[in-house]
């Protein structure tokens, strides 16, 4: 039995080591299996870490036996253990779905490359989350980004290439901004360890250099996070990526970016420094705009994947809105929505994966009336859509409730109204799709199609079921989010 410190190391090293092994495999199915096993193992590790931090408390583990300011340390606390579990859990569930979908969408000689990229992406995402070193964040971020560009570029449509390229340019600019910010922090403090930086900043804070660093880092993360108006790369990237890649990235990548944002705002720069700057005001405006604009644009999309992608832009707005409230309740709502949105969007993208599997397209026009041919898939779409709207007994409702409560608690009326108005827009775009899928006459009668295979339906319904389960029993989701928010605000459990 490994110690908990070793488990924390395994979180990164095992996928990193398995990646080249998968790379050497020729057979796509074997590669898939190895990837799945690794991912599930990482989920187990993450759950162990979460249990440990919840019961015992945060802990630090060093790489190479070098203590903190010189070496890199991994620091596990409630916040990132929660995110680790989300990332590895979503990866595992989406991977269960992946085999058939990948076999259909990706040429056989590229499948093991696909899974290699997947594992590297997972490594990167987990690494960003677990590390306590600012520069290491950049490195892992780039690992995950580079591999996600590859994942996206493997889409069948040639537009996957251009959208991947666009993402690459934007993503690199974002990462470089983060690098500049970290550079300034290094110049000011002479250290790269987050805890150290934060300690040393408390003496020198509010100098122009620190503020510049802050601005660069926030904008850089904003790019990775698809914070409005830096979201332009996201819709295309999600729309043309292979189905499973869309589901994986939608459920994890932006969540990790949000975590990064929180980590820098709360741990590195500190609550007081960050919110002395007009951060709250900026975020509130941007995220409200994201909710409204993202939802409105989603209404006019003709491709279901793009529709969901724009909806993601709006949903990221909800998370940022929670952050902008600058209260513990708001922060908790944001963290809760990180989890809930991962479940919702992961589930919905898997639903689209089922449609794409049978019909080879996510275009709304070509799918008209097809809902009737795949009742279970369609039912999953409706259930997920309701959650997106925020109907009671779904996770979406729980998030909205917490967010509205947090906003009203400090008397931010208009914010609460924006959140609720977002639901109305969500009904419009979800229901537009539902109507086309169900009520429109089938566009092409010759194509009589069976329900998606069980191997695809099970993981889809697993996520959709989780949507409902966590909409009723919120002990885990709200519970952990509360503890994590408290930890971020006060630094104590």
């Amino acid at each position, binding site marked *: 039995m490994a110690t908990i410190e070793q488990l924390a190391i395994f979180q990164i090293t095992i996928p990193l080591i398995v990646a080249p092994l998968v790379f050497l495999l020729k057979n796509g199915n074997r590669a898939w299996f190895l990837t799945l096993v690794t991912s599930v193992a990482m989920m187990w590790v993450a759950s162990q870490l979460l249990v440990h931090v919840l019961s015992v408390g945060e802990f630090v583990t060093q790489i190479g036996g070098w203590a903190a300011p010189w070496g890199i340390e991994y620091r596990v606390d409630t916040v990132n253990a929660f995110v680790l579990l989300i990332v590895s859990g979503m990866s595992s569930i989406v991977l269960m779905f992946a085999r058939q979908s990948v076999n259909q969408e990706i040429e056989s000689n590229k499948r093991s490359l696909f899974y290699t990229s997947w594992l590297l992406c997972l490594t990167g995402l987990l690494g960003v989350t677990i590390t306590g070193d600012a520069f290491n964040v950049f490195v892992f971020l780039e690992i995950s980004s580079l591999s996600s560009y590859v994942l996206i570029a493997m889409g069948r449509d040639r537009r996957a290439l251009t959208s991947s390229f666009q993402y690459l340019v934007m993503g690199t600019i974002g990462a470089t901004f983060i690098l500049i910010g970290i550079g300034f922090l290094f110049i000011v403090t002479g250290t790269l360890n987050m805890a150290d930086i934060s300690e040393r900043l408390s003496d020198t804070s509010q100098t122009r250099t620190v503020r510049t660093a802050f601005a660069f880092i926030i904008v850089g993360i904003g790019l990775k996070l698809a914070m409005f108006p830096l979201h332009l790369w996201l819709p295309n990237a999600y729309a043309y990526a292979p189905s499973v890649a869309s589901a994986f990235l939608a459920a994890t990548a932006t969540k990790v970016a949000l975590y990064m944002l929180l980590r820098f705002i709360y741990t590195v720069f500190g609550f007081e420094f960050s919110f002395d700057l007009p951060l709250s005001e900026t975020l509130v405006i941007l995220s409200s705009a994201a909710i409204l604009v993202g939802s409105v644009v989603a209404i006019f999309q003709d491709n279901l994947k793009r529709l969901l992608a724009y909806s993601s832009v709006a949903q990221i707005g909800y998370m940022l809105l929670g952050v902008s409230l600058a209260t513990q309740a708001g922060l908790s709502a944001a963290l809760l929505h990180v989890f809930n949105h991962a479940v919702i969007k992961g589930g919905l993208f898997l639903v689209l994966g089922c449609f794409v599997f049978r019909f080879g397209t996510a275009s709304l026009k070509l799918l008209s009336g097809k809902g009737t041919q795949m009742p279970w898939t369609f039912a999953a779409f409706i259930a997920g859509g*309701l959650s997106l*709207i*925020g*109907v*009671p*007994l779904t996770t979406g409702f*729980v998030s*909205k*409730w*917490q967010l*509205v*409560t947090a906003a*009203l*608690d400090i008397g931010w009326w208009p914010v*609460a*109204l924006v959140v*609720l*108005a977002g*639901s*109305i827009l969500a*009904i*419009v775009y979800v*229901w537009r799709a539902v*109507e086309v899928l169900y*009520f429109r006459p089938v566009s092409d009668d010759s194509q009589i199609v069976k329900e998606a295979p069980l191997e695809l339906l099970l993981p889809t319904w697993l996520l959709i079921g989780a949507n409902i389960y966590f*909409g*009723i*029993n*919120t002990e885990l989701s*709200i519970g952990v989010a509360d503890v994590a928010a408290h930890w971020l605000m006060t630094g104590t459990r």
Partner: protein
Amino acid sequence: MKIPASEVLLLLALIIPVVGSFFIFLCRKFPNVREGITLITGIALFANVSLIASRVFTGERPEFVLAEPFSGFTLSLAVEPLGMLFALLASFLWIITSIYAIGYMRGHGEDNQTRFYIFFACSIASVMGVAFAGDLLTLFVFYEILTLMTYPLVTHSGTAEARRSGRVYLGILISTSMVFFLLAVVWTALEVGTLAFSIGGIYPEGTEPWVLGLLLALFVFGIGKAAIMPFHRWLPAAMVAPTPVSALLHAVAVVKAGVFSILKICIYIFGASSLHNLAVAEWLSLLAGFTIIAASIVAMGKDNLKARLAYSTISQLSYVTLGALLGNSAAWTGASMHMVAHAFGKITLFFCAGAILVAHHKKNVSELDGLGRVMPFTMGAFFIGSLSIAGLPPTAGMWSKWYLVLGTVDAGELILLNVLLLSTLLNVYYLVSIPIRGFFKPLRTPVSGIKEAPLPCLIAIGVTTTITVGLFIYPEHLFQAVSGLVTTW
């Protein structure tokens, strides 16, 4: 056999219809078995609800906590007399409507009947949830579920018109509830720290009047199902649904869920004393009065029979809203009784409209001249029903209107008193005139002999008409049930 505890019965009220719908799904290939299951489910539910009622009216108050999604705020079931009355009403009329639906759906040759029965049963389950909701959060949750469960029924035919109406239906109901209702619920939760219904209201003394006023407005507008203007458009839109849906859901269950929620919030969240001191309550009751008159005037202009009935419903719902907002015991008694009286009256009218549609394919009022001679039974029932809606003897509607009028007098609202009286006149003009035309005007296209709707339809019409008259002659039980409530207010 040991009779289970009331808590279990409470849970069963939600479970029975859902289980029923599951079996309906299993028997989708055998229409007769399927309809049999619908009926059995209906009877089982009514028996179950009656069993609860027999205990509740003797003073028991069962409660059941389903889940606790937010710390301190639960999803719970609890029974009080008003909800009990509503549950009895809905579960009883479900049986009747099922009988009617069998005749109608087959007579009219509708598609997708299995889907129809499944969602019908699920809607009833949500109605039970609304009726037995133990706190505001639960009420909200089941209110929303009810909207979603009735959506497939509204868009049943799947035509472009049905889709458009579905959009209006969902759009208005979900928008109002998600924005206003939810906001009010969350705000109340923050303000008070609890959402449980309690006699005399839950807002602490000294809550700012503007807060209370705003909350009341949010509740009244947020509960779009009560169809107060300007959020009434969904109700006429919902009339594209098959007639049994319009009859049970859009004359009884759904709309009553709306006014029931308002009534319950007025009684158990605000309480009489809060309402009395609120200027907003008065403005809102004036708005309800306006809705009564305006909807009646619109109804006069409608030639489509179901549309006319829909606007009549809008107007009648505002009776209840008005009574709820007046906040005195006569008005509350009237409002509660009106829920029941209007239910029987209006469902009769819808049954008749459906019967006319099935038997003669006529949808418009102007086509009904002389039809009384062909469908004497249906037209007779229509006459009784419209008397009840107008609030004239010998029907149940008279008693509820009586108490509502008393309520306006008690509250000193002369304008509203006049509104109620004027509304009676308008009702006579646009509803009672229909059977009169039917009996006395000459038939446009001659039809030989009597041609009524299928037998199940007639049975259903007979039952509801009888009860409408019966409640006039023997109002004691209803009154006792309601006044049992009143003493606890």
